[in-house]
């Protein structure tokens, strides 16, 4: 079953007068339940592609459909909702909110997606869900800590917990181990593989072949296209 399908994606950045054509007709299918690794040279457009797949950015041309729904034909509000419910993002630099503790960071997508009044009734359930997820990533005893009190690997596990708290269909990770030493990176990969074993669809961007080898399938981005 195809979960997401990108068709003829084009993206060009203009820096002053010079134009950088990053994506030039990318076609890609992501299957339900698979772990897909996108590799390629630095600056070839991997992050750009991932952002478009996750509705964080818009292509100049082409379409992305997620579970049959065209992402860019939908309105802004719908896209915001999809980002909230159907997509989870893990970034290279964790991107946790420094004013909030671990539990609050994990709860954030829940809060964003719940109207104020409903929150009163659903906060208990959301909290136990977040606690449960933090337990699976091994951070139950760190719930009340602020991000700056955690190591890089722990922060990345918090970011993963946050990405999956809304049980998205689609987990996107951009160089999740890029900023970590080998040991911590290994821990993160184990964590992601564990999620994948439980049926989570994951798209992973990396330029580290060792990491890419752990995925079910690899594709390579060269010259703005997916190499066959």
């Amino acid at each position: 079953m195809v979960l997401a399908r990108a068709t003829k994606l084009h993206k060009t950045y203009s820096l002053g007068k010079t134009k950088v054509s990053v994506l030039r007709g990318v076609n890609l299918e992501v299957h339900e339940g698979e772990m897909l690794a996108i590799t390629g040279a630095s600056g070839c457009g991997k992050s750009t592609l991932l952002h478009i797949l996750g509705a964080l950015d818009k292509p100049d041309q082409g379409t992305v459909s997620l579970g049959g729904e065209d992402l860019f034909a939908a309105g802004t509000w719908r896209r915001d909702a999809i980002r909230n419910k159907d997509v989870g993002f893990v970034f290279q630099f964790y991107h946790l909110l420094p004013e909030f503790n671990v539990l609050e960071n994990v709860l954030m997508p829940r809060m964003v997606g719940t109207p104020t009044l409903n929150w009163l009734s659903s906060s208990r359930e959301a909290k136990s869900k977040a606690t449960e997820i933090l337990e699976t990533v091994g951070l139950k005893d760190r719930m009340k800590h602020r991000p700056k009190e955690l190591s890089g690997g722990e922060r990345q596990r918090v970011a993963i917990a946050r990405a999956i708290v809304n049980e998205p269909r689609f987990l996107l990770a951009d160089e999740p181990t890029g900023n970590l030493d080998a040991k911590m990176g290994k821990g993160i990969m184990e964590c992601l593989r564990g999620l994948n074993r439980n049926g989570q669809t994951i798209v992973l961007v990396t330029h580290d072949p060792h990491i890419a080898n752990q995925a079910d399938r690899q594709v390579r981005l060269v010259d703005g296209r997916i190499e066959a």
Partner: protein
Amino acid sequence: MYKLFLTFRYLISKWVAVFSILSVWLCVAMVLIVFSVMDGFLDNIKQHSRGLLGDIIIDNSTLQGFPYYEEFSAYLKDRLPDEIDVVTPVIYSYGILREPESSFTKPVRIVAIDFDSYCAVNNFRESLYYDRYYPDTTSLGLVQKPVAGIDMKGNSILPERLEAAHREYLKNRVEEEVDHTDIAEPNYRSPHGVGGFEQHFGLPGYEGNPLPGIIIGTDVVFSRDRKGVYNRSILDRGAEIVLTILPLTSRGTIAENPIPVAMRNIDDSRTKVYEIDKICVYVDFKLFQEYLSMGALERVDGSFTEPRASQLLVSLKDGKDYNKALPKIEEVWNDFLGTLAGNVTRYEADLLSSVGVDTWETRQQAFIQAVEKEKVLVTILFGIISVVAIVLIGVVFYMIVLQKTRDIGIIKSLGATSAGVAMIFIMYGAIIGVIGGILGILTGTTVVANINEIQAWLASWNPKLQVWSPEVYTFDRIPSVVKPLVLVAVFGMAVLTSTLGALVPALKAAWVWPVKTLRYE
């Protein structure tokens, strides 16, 4: 949900926000204090300036006044018996006040009144000084000078009539209403600590020729010390005073040579409107109508001129609205002119045609408006200050937004809408407005409630800090009222200003495009 959560978290974690709260707080407190004092000032002026007018005023703006005022008074009462309470004539003129002993002179405005009916149309009686402590001893008729003497025990006492009046006062006085700046330590020249009397070492009594009484505006002769107490010992009660007047004919020409009128200082009047109290003296109507050549004078052909008055003051019966009575009285005046038609001389007709009818409020408008204009000016000033506050909050918030750009991107990547992100900062601004507004209102009302004490405290450190000096202002205390409407308006403005200040940064935050901020650390 996240909006409120983030708003509150940023509120307590961002110290710069304290500056926004501080600026709103100070602005609100300042606006409130200044407005309350100005409103109090205005209320006081309105209240006191009405004091010397009736509900309705009928006059022309000439010095020679207008004739047939008596006939009109009777006609008016006859036509509107249910509305009119009292009608009293007044003559205004100018003169020179001279105290023979010290050769003190001053130009004054003469207000010739029928004492009893004048006191019935307005609050004049309440403005009198000796009349309060010696009730019913003030009149404008012929009087001698009261002299204090010594009783068997060696104490200074006044003539029995004044002693009896003072006992009456002591019996009826309400302790809360005693103005302690009016009364000093009793001494020989002031047996009850009230005013100043001539003192002899014998029995109390009266001396000198009976002369007409004159009531002097308190600030015409007396001045206050730092504590706001008038020094009345410089002019005893009953002391002789000469008022030189200039009679005018009905055509406005000078009728005779200036006449010096010897009178006795019987009382002084403090309406608490300095503009009135520094210039007016009050004398008997009938007497001065004659002196000023405004009474009935025999013409060469044996007929008599019509007596004239400068003004009629009308008080309405209780519960009647002067704004509703005004057109009725105007109509009666026009009817009255109709009854006179053909029977008046050309000069009389001129004087009558320029007579107008007004309410006290329109009459005081120029005066009240001056203060009200000041209020507008201050409002504009505060408008400018509010703009400064908006800009300050805007800048503080802009800093916060710039600092938080990455976090805004993160929140958006988690599915927050642009509107939702903007709301975080708009609510942030509104909450700062609410907090600053509440603090400002608390501070402002506390300061206003204790403004006189605060001033006294400041003055105890350094007398130069006594901003509101009783030497300068007629009101002893700094007047102030906190109007609920002003409270609501100031609070609303505070919230609105802070929200507006947060608007531009909020829009900036809404514009944040997540990918740009998330690409790097």
